[in-house]
């Protein structure tokens, strides 16, 4: 009696899990299937397979939306931000975690506050103008790096504690200065957390929409998100092209998610247990 009851609840669990997963998958499936149809077929927006797979929709979307340029821009912004963020936040988090003086604790919490603070984009524009960073590719990367400082420091700070202090001391006894000690000894040991931060920073920059909306005026500097949005506005009646465009934007994130799912999930949910 008891065992059959347990099984019934397990079956219900399985069914709920499958329904939920389907609810997530169905919209993506719809987008993918319709991205291969003709304009007329895609108007019906259903799950029937296309008569013929129109791969050329993707070529058309790339050409009409000038996506090749935007794709390269996004890759540049995301990987540039990734590299800068690591170089800037890892030494900071390391020192703040190792030497917990009153001042350092204050700096740490001052930085962490940024996880919550909103950015005043209108005033930021003024600052970016004054620094000659507005409407500039490098400017956007520097800005993204600044925006990632709080989160990067927060995650790396938590990990530094797992590396024994004796390692630093041994390096110093061997005559290493702080730079050498950090970059040749400690930095490699931070690899797991650095990979997590890199993945999250990459996705953060890839997914961002609001910042370039304020900061970039020139269409040739637009990232994928802006181009896709403007493409949607112009071709709203042609779902096949719009969907091909959406698939192209999701693809890199999907690949990264497949490769680094564990690091991404643990990074995005860090603090859940201890925090």
């Amino acid at each position, binding site marked *: 009696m008891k065992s059959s009851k347990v099984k019934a609840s397990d079956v219900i*669990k*399985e069914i709920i*899990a499958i329904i*939920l*997963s389907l*609810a*997530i*998958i169905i919209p993506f499936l*719809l987008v993918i299937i319709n991205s291969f149809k003709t304009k007329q077929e895609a108007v*019906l*927006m*259903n799950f029937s397979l296309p008569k013929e797979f129109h791969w050329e929709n993707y070529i058309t979307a790339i050409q009409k939306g000038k996506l090749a340029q935007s794709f390269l821009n996004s890759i540049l912004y995301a990987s540039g931000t990734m590299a800068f963020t690591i170089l*800037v936040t890892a*030494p900071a988090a*390391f*020192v703040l975690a*190792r030497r917990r003086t009153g*001042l350092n604790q204050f700096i740490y919490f001052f930085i962490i506050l*940024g*996880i*919550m*603070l*909103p950015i*005043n*984009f*209108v*005033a*930021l524009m*003024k*600052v970016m103008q004054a*620094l000659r960073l507005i409407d500039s590719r490098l400017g956007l990367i*520097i*800005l993204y*790096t*600044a*925006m990632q*400082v709080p989160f990067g420091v927060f995650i790396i700070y938590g990990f530094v504690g797992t590396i024994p*202090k004796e390692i630093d*001391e041994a390096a*110093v006894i061997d005559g290493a200065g*702080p730079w050498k*000690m950090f970059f040749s000894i400690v930095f490699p040991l931070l690899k797991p957390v650095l990979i997590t931060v890199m993945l999250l920073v990459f996705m953060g920059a890839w*997914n961002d*929409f*609001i910042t370039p*909306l*304020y900061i970039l005026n020139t269409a040739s500097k637009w990232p994928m*998100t802006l181009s*896709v949005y403007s493409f949607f506005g112009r071709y709203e009646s042609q779902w096949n092209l*719009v*969907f091909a465009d959406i698939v192209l934007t999701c693809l890199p*994130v999907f690949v990264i998610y497949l490769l680094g799912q564990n690091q991404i*999930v643990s990074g*995005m*949910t860090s*603090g*859940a*247990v*201890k*925090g």
Partner: protein
Amino acid sequence: MREGKVMNQSKMYPLYFTFVALILYIVLFIVPGFLGIYYSFTDWNRYSSEIHFVGFDNYKTILTSNKNYMGYIGNTLKFTVISNIIKIIPALFLAILLNEGLKAKNVHRAILFFPSVLPYLVIGLIFRSMLHPTTGFINQALRSLGLDFMAQKWLVDPNWVWPSIYAVDAWRGIGYVMTIFLAGLQSIPEYYYEAADIDGATFMQKLRHITLPMLTPSININLIFGITYGLKVFDIIYVLTNGGPGHMTEVINTAVFQEFARGTYGVGTALSTLLFVFMAVVGLFIVRFLNQREVEL
């Protein structure tokens, strides 16, 4: 070891390691916040190179203008509260449900988490297509099932626009909130439940006296992330409705962008400043709270 103790800590861990991060953060994050406070008391706009001090005029505009800025602030707060309730409570029960005894547990989790890594923009566009009144998937599916009366103008009808936004937001976010709860659930020792079972505790009793108290850190993190996200919300609203129909779904950050596009920077910074000050105060409480936890640990 003894030598380690006498080593000069300030030489080993020099403060200048923090300088680049600190300068970037201050110049591009904190300075605009405070500069915004200053500009919120001026008539700064696109059409004049001179900037004059105008006292509280921009704030008066926000309070009294017929453009209903107070309504946008209200919408932001409403979105923050409702979108979090809609995500957190179901996610909690789903996490408890899916924590154990599921066959393809990891596959389901990977799928449910996936929307959280995609751009809000893309999610918004997918659902704007699916919710299209005439050619959208949802209405076509309802009609083909003979449920024509259920087909709505989802993002245009004033009665349906907020529920549609909440639904899309929950579709994206529930998996994320749930994953945080799952991480928390895994940290609860199994023997707590075993002991409770021996005492004959019911599901609700176990939930109230074991699960919820032990999940406090996860609940806090979800609230912190959720409140921060809700107050700063922009992308999903901008893409789904752009504040419409009329200005029904306008929130602070979409209104700021409109002022920016219109060139009325003074009012824009004033709106942003209200959000900045409010979140700075909330943030200080949260940081203090986290700090205390750290001391306890």
